[in-house]
């Protein structure tokens, strides 16, 4: 009681300064560590603990690291107060990944809480447990999620659905089927909130398993349909409630609906709609129109999603609009227009996204939005990005009838004080004129008037936006002229006349270009050309760079096309201009002039007479042709849309950022649907149509579990047949099976013969004989030549694999390994001293716990550096952290007598430009945190950080393949960790080799080499063997397998790594990495490291 009163008094005194802050947590945020936190955490009173936890959260909120208190906080997870629990969970989830070992201590409590009668406690426990993200406990979490998925409380089931992506995120293949099963259960839930969350989980966990959702889609569609159309009671809003109750539940289910519907229904209409970017989309509409009509399921989908267009939530409206856009027939698509325009008004934040999407819709089908042009009129309060989007939409939806209004608006915009926007408006006028040739004249008049007005003001220097307006104006005029040059002769003359008053270089350059391009046009222009060129030659010296270049081009062009008596004058003008240009300050101008001069040597005549005499007559025409080709080549008509214009799914993130975001999946092409799925679906759909909702549930679970059984059975089969249960084993089989089914018979025979064979040589002989046309003999020989003497394919291995494989060794690989260099000190920080370090593969002679680090000192300065040495910052800290390590995990047995750092030999002096190498032996205590060291050079003290690399906490452990498989089989289950990643390094190698045709290297060889090299350059490992798929297709690297072995430095526990490849040679490969190690934490860390550096594309490691 008393300490509480004390605390209260303190609170009061603090809060007395600001009365209104009494009772809030203000003082905790302002100075969270004004009292000692750890005694509070150990207090008996909940209020003290809450106070301490709030202080910790305040530290977290402000970005300080409060993970030191982790053990004490975890202890409080057992508290009965919900407030304490909540705060502990908040803290725990924030720091669990940093302190995985301590986080394990809380698991028991979660397990207990999962059985609590209070649903809130169960839900929180599940959320926290799934959020901790430890591979070790994932089986426990899986069981918990499975239990909670059948919980009576809706809230708990919803949390279970949300926990599934967390589990999936750990990338543990062996749980995949179980997770999918739970998704299936939750998708069939009767509460819309749960279905929404489950649909979200479905989308992130297994978006390709359509079989799983098809029934529940039908269910949700039916219930949506019935609720909306038939029952008129309070639960009519049932499914709708789900949608906004958790904002986007239905939204997600919508999305998955859409995707799977596309699969199931083979919608020809999708393809046609997505090909809207083609010009001729109107014809396609016809075809799609009929197919959209005939399809009942699509009809149901559309009927049920159309009320969603009335939703208050703009995300739901946009998603529903996306569904209609993709699936609906042309006359139904119209109904998305008004809702889309309406949500544009709803909030400023969503305006940008909505406009981006409308822009895409409007480009594909301008007719949809054409009547609503008023909605895109621009307000001054809009931000520039919004204005630009609106302008673009306006220019793409303008029609002949609405153009007069839009044009009037554009003219208003040009008067806007925002000159950037005015320039964009001018550009939009040009776009409109190109889209609507009939209106080109109106546009042209307006633009000419604008230019005349603008140059009257003559103040381009003072207002920089003005230049932009003018340039865009002339650019627009140019594009209009390009459409139909003959009718715009007078415009060109006007432009040329205004040349004297226009001062903006870019604008001048453009007008000069127009002169050169259309110099032969009509009657009047050719006559005025000489005068114009004289004028240009006169002011050449005072022009800006781009204008000068353009003058050279134009004079040459005019000369090339000149006829009659003008030629002589023109020649003189050109040589005058070139003479000037050759003396120009800018090298671009000089180069251009030299080029022009040489090309025109036949014409100019003044120089190069000798060469001309030497040339044969037929070669005389050659330079002329060349010059004409260069200067008078036909310009290609530009397309309206930018070339790199890409279209993504409406409403997706990729659509806004205009590149495919990670995880973006386009709608699949129709007909990629597996046949059995389709058959099943139509059955289910038929049954659905007839039956009511009650009988439905039982039907449904039957089919669902049936399909699941099949699925899991096949998974299971593959797993227990092979000792290495990585997921690729299964896929290998299926792919080979499908090969066998679809393709030629000989393949099967080969694999049979392989099974029968015992001798490696025989295998390769049969292979080479039978696969003559599949695989070039040369490549095979290259393998055979390098056949290793180390190991043979073991019998057991062979029977497991059921497909033939050859084994190669890459002999010289070790010599090519170059460890990665890390920078310790760069010259700017180190007063000219540059220190890089790399981990050495040698092991220390002093103690097995020490890791050798090679340091390279380089003097980049001009003065010599003396007395360079590197020492540990806090020598006494080492023992402390070692103690800590002892406390937390018993397996990290460290010897306290081993120093953190065996000091290196001091470098007495280092001359400028010299490099010096030293070896440092370091003990990292198995911490992945950097070691703080101090570098002394020339008496200066520089603190540095040495980052450990877990790849060098191991040393190579030579063994043969039998021993490897034997050890591997002793480390199953929880000692085995899998991860997948994408490997792309070999692509560069492959393409590089294409260039030099002399050395034709085998693709497979290159892949293994680059992979092995990458592994060995980043970790201290021993490469045991490389397995090669032989029966595979020529370009398919699936099944290639690399094995590495190592042992942990500190305790000599073996650590095995197996990498299995999947995919085509010339494409990014899917790697499945497997680590077998008794030391779980170490193994996991090593696995993560390996996966990270393999996935990280290196520039070049050679």
């Amino acid at each position: 009681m008393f300490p509480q009163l004390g605390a209260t008094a303190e609170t009061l005194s603090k809060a007395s300064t600001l009365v209104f802050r009494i009772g809030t947590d203000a003082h905790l945020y302002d100075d969270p560590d004004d009292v000692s936190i750890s005694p509070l955490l150990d207090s008996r009173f909940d209020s003290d603990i809450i106070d301490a936890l709030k202080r910790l959260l305040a530290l977290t909120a402000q970005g300080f690291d409060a993970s030191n208190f982790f053990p004490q906080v975890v202890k409080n997870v057992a508290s009965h107060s919900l407030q304490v629990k909540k705060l502990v969970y908040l803290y725990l989830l924030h720091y669990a990944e940093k302190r995985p070992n301590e986080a394990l201590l809380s698991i028991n409590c979660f397990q207990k809480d999962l059985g609590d009668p209070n649903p809130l406690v169960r839900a929180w426990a599940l959320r926290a447990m799934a959020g901790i993200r430890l591979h070790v406990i994932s089986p426990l979490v899986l069981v918990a999620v499975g239990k909670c998925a059948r919980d009576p409380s809706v809230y708990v089931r919803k949390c279970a659905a949300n926990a599934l992506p967390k589990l999936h995120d750990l990338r543990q293949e062996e749980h995949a089927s179980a997770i999918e099963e739970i998704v299936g259960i939750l998708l069939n839930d009767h509460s819309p909130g749960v279905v929404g969350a489950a649909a979200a989980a479905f989308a992130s966990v297994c978006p390709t398993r359509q079989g799983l959702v098809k029934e529940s889609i039908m269910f949700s569609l039916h219930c949506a349909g019935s609720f909306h159309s038939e029952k008129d009671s309070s639960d009519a809003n049932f499914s709708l409630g789900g949608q906004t109750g958790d904002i986007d539940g239905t939204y997600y289910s919508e999305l998955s609906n859409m995707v799977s519907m596309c699969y199931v229904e083979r919608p020809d209409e999708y393809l046609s709609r997505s090909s809207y970017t083609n010009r001729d989309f109107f014809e396609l509409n016809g075809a799609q129109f009929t197919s959209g009509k005939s399809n009942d399921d699509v009809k149901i989908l559309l009927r049920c999603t159309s009320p969603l267009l009335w939703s208050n939530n703009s995300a739901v409206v946009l998603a529903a609009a996306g569904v209609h856009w993709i699936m609906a027939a042309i006359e139904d698509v119209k109904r998305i227009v008004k809702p889309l325009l309406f949500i544009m008004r709803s909030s400023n934040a969503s305006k940008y996204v909505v406009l981006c999407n409308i822009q895409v819709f409007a480009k594909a089908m301008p007719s949809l939005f054409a009547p609503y042009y008023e909605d895109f009129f621009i307000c001054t309060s809009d931000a520039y990005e919004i204005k630009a989007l609106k302008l673009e939409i306006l220019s793409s939806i303008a029609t002949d009838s609405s153009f007069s209004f839009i044009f009037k608006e554009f003219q208003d915009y040009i008067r806007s004080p925002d000159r950037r926007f005015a320039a964009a408006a001018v550009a939009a006028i040009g776009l409109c004129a190109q889209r609507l040739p009939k209106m080109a004249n109106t546009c042209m008049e307006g633009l000419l008037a604008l230019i005349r007005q603008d140059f009257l003001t003559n103040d381009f220097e003072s207002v920089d936006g003005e230049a932009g307006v003018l340039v865009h104006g002339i650019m627009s005029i140019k594009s209009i002229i390009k459409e139909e040059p003959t009718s715009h002769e007078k415009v060109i003359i006007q432009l040329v006349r205004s040349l004297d008053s226009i001062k903006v270089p870019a604008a001048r350059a453009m007008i000069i270009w127009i002169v050169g391009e259309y110099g032969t046009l009509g009657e009047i222009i050719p006559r005025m050309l000489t005068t114009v060129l004289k004028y240009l030659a006169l002011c050449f010296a005072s022009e800006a760079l781009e204008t000068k270049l353009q003058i050279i081009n134009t004079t040459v062009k005019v000369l090339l096309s000149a006829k009659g008596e003008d030629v002589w004058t023109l020649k003189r003008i050109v040589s005058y201009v070139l003479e000037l240009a050759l003396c120009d300050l800018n090298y671009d101008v000089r180069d251009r002039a030299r080029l022009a001069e040489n090309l025109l040597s036949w014409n100019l005549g003044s120089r190069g007479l000798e060469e001309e005499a030497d040339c044969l007559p037929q070669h005389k025409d050659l330079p002329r042709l060349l010059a004409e080709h260069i200067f008078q080549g036909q310009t290609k008509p530009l397309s309206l849309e930018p070339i790199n214009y890409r279209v993504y799914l409406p409403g997706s993130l990729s659509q806004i950022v205009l590149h495919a975001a990670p995880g973006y999946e386009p709608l699949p092409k129709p007909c990629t649907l597996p046949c059995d799925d389709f058959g099943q679906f139509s059955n289910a759909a038929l049954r659905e149509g007839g039956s009511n909702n009650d009988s439905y549930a039982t039907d449904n679970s039957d089919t669902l579990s049936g399909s699941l059984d099949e699925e899991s059975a096949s998974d299971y089969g593959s797993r227990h047949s092979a000792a290495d249960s990585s997921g690729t084993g299964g896929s290998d089989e299926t792919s080979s099976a499908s090969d066998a089914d679809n393709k030629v018979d000989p393949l099967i025979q080969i694999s049979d013969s392989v099974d029968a064979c015992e001798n490696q040589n025989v295998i390769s002989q049969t292979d080479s004989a039978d696969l003559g046309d599949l695989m070039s003999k040369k490549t095979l020989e290259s393998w055979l030549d390098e056949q290793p003497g180390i190991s043979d394919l073991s019998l057991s291995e062979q029977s497991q694999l059921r497909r033939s494989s050859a084994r190669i060794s890459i002999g010289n690989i070790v010599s090519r390994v170059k460890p990665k260099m890390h920078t310790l000190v760069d010259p700017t920080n180190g007063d000219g001293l540059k220190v890089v370090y790399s981990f050495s593969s040698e092991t220390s002679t002093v103690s097995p716990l020490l890791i050798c680090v090679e340091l390279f000192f380089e003097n980049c300065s001009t003065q010599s550096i003396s007395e360079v040495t590197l020492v540990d910052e806090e020598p006494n800290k080492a023992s402390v952290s070692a103690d800590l390590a002892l406390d937390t995990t018993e397996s990290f047995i460290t010897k306290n007598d081993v120093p953190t750092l065996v000091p290196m030999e001091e470098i007495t002096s280092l001359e400028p430009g010299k490099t010096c190498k030293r070896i440092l032996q370091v003990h990292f205590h198995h911490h992945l945190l950097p070691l703080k060291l101090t570098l002394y050079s020339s008496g200066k003290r520089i603190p540095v950080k040495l980052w450990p690399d877990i790849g060098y906490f191991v040393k190579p452990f030579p063994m043969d393949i039998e021993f490897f498989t034997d050890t591997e089989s002793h480390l199953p289950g929880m000692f085995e960790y899998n991860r997948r990643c994408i490997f792309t390094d070999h692509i560069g190698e492959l393409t590089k080799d294409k260039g030099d045709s002399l050395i034709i290297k085998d693709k497979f060889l290159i892949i293994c080499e680059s992979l092995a090299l990458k592994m060995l350059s980043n970790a201290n490992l021993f490469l045991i063997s490389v397995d090669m798929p032989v029966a595979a297709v020529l370009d398919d690297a699936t099944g290639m397998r690399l094995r590495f072995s190592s042992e942990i430095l500190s305790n000599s526990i073996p650590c095995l790594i197996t990498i299995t490849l999947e995919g085509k040679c010339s494409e990014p490969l899917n790697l499945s990495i497997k680590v077998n190690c008794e030391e779980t934490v170490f193994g996991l860390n090593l696995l993560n490291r390996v996966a990270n550096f393999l996935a990280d594309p290196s520039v070049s490691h050679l």
Partner: protein
Amino acid sequence: MLQCIFLLSDSGEVMLEKQLTGHRVDRSICDWFWNQAITQGDSFKALSVIASPTHYLFQVVREGITFLACTQVEMPPLMGIELLCRVADVLSDYLGELNEDVIKDNFIIVYELLDEMIDNGFPLTTEPNILREMIAPPNIVSKVLSVVTGNNSNVIDTLPGATASSIPWRTADTKYANNEVYVDLVEELDAIINRDGVMVKCEICGEVQVNSHLTGLPDLTLSFANPSILDDVRFHPCVRFRPWESHQILSFVPPDGQFKLMSYRVKKLKSTPIYVKPQLTSDAGTCRISMLVGIRNDPGKTIDSITVQFQLPPCILSADLTSNHGTVDILANKICSWSIGRIPKDKAPSLSGTLVLETGLERLHVFPTFQVSFKIMGVALSGLQIDKLDLKNIPSNRLYKGFRALTRAGEFEVRS
């Protein structure tokens, strides 16, 4: 799937970070964001989706507070934005207002709310009614209690019943001595008058706002006298679609308290209630401005708090403006504001003055746009009329029904 949410103050300080998934986002992303915001200026705020070098960012700015969410994978951007908007709504509802101090003072509540609203980057409980039951909002009583007793828990022990309910927006059992329901029509007039004085766009965006304090599970039916004028509608999730589709009747079980039942749009209105006629003539380095404001179409009620605002173009050095009614202020950023209030009976308010242009500039070639704001109580300018409101399932007879209407200017712009 959102990975992290940051709350930034108006000076760019990271007030709060909440990691949502195991893929932690370093707060250095906020530095990048703030640098961009400073270099790119105001237009950056309109970009609600930003692709940074490492993450995709969603931003929502409310009253100076930036809500920043990060993701690395494809997700519907509007879902992220709507979620952030909802977070902002809930927070301002809880804390009464949104500013730096109030968020820092109640950071624990903010943490608890964020944790409850978002699970693993997906929305969990976003319905304000349920949230209020799960996490007690700060109020005077709880503040005093926490100071006196030292017991500062604001988390409830049991799960609110509404989480399992089929109408999650309504609190399970509410009891009132007086049953009251108020319906407000709040309309905003958007209009654009172009340089020739022609009205190119005039429409109304309206909302039906309901404030209900009703006992039990009431069932309400609201009908309009002239629903055909509505061009487009959007509903609160409580509204049933079927009756609207067939008879254009709003049938719903209302949430407790204030909520937005429906928003609607009425297009192609004939005229605006007031006119603003600006005239600018420039000559010899100066520009004369004169502006007349008056009632064009009397709505029958007084037009209140009329203000005309415009931004002086950058090429104007100084301005000397006088008016015969109301006050003229030139604010920062060369924004000119003329607050008129009500239009007097005897004279038409007018503003006149001269603007001095930059030296060397003969005449003005860019013209400001005048933004008009006003408020009319008691009238819905769209002409929408509520026919009747029926209530079912009300246990007691003590029932009050109230109707109000209000029109104000939205984006009412007059170009010159």
